[in-house]
């Protein structure tokens, strides 16, 4: 099945992204993983998310490369390497055990419980006039959710501007341009 192939591709790409010696190759393999995720969304019948994921992926790559250009990666290993590795693997192991128990409670793959979503599917076109049910949910049924999401994005933009803007005041205080 092609979904398993894409998942294998994503896992390989993320391992390469984590273990690469160079920062730029790490970012590019990360973008390969994001492309695999976009394809997986397309196979899982979510074209909205596929478009959004693809576009956001390009933005990630541009911003990350912009951030790490002309910078080096120093590989160091300090004395507590063994302790750190063992504790990390213990943490991941405990997480996997709990996830295995929690996975039994979920419905089987391919047969979701559609208590709320069935209602949306039935009355989506008639009440909102939008043929795309996902857009109908995000912008009409649950519009407050999208409102708060927009607020978060706007706050992030203002935060980035505030973080970046500090540079003028530190380095040339006598100009006072902003």
């Amino acid at each position, binding site marked *: 099945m092609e979904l398993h192939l894409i998942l294998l591709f994503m896992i390989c790409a993320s391992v390469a992204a984590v273990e690469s010696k160079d920062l730029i190759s790490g970012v590019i393999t990360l973008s390969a993983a994001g492309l695999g995720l976009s394809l997986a969304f397309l196979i899982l019948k979510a074209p909205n998310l596929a478009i959004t994921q693809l576009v956001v992926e390009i933005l990630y790559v541009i911003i990350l490369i912009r951030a790490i250009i002309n910078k080096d990666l120093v590989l160091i290993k300090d004395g507590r390497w063994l302790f750190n*590795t063992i504790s990390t693997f213990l943490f991941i192991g405990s997480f996997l055990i709990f996830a295995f128990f929690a996975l039994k409670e979920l419905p089987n793959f391919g047969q979701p419980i559609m208590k709320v979503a069935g209602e949306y599917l039935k009355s989506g076109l008639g009440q909102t006039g939008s043929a795309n049910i996902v857009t109908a949910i995000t912008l009409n049924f649950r519009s407050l959710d999208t409102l708060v999401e927009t607020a978060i*994005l706007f706050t992030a933009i203002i935060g980035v501007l505030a973080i970046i803007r500090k540079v003028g005041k530190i380095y040339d205080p006598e100009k006072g341009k902003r």
Partner: protein
Amino acid sequence: MCFVLFSIGLYCILRKRNIIKIIIGIVIVEYALNLFLILIGYRIHGRAPIVAQDQEILNMVDPLPQAMVSTSIVIGLAIIVVLISLAIRIYEKYGTFDITKIRRLKG
């Protein structure tokens, strides 16, 4: 298999010393969670949740997780951009991406 991806991201967050590597780990964890939520809502032989003209389709996949994940992607983008700007500021201040050296300089 999605949990394997999540584990890789978690390993990357906990183990690496570079800030950019930590950001990469956070992005991988976010991918894994989005994929898991979509996998819950998948229905075998389902259709995409878009109503076509002049026909009735009832076996659509679950549209609710897709809407939620669409929100999640946006919030992930906002978080990553703020993290990157913070990383750039840290690099400018300390001259390195290494988190242990940053700690030593601060104390």
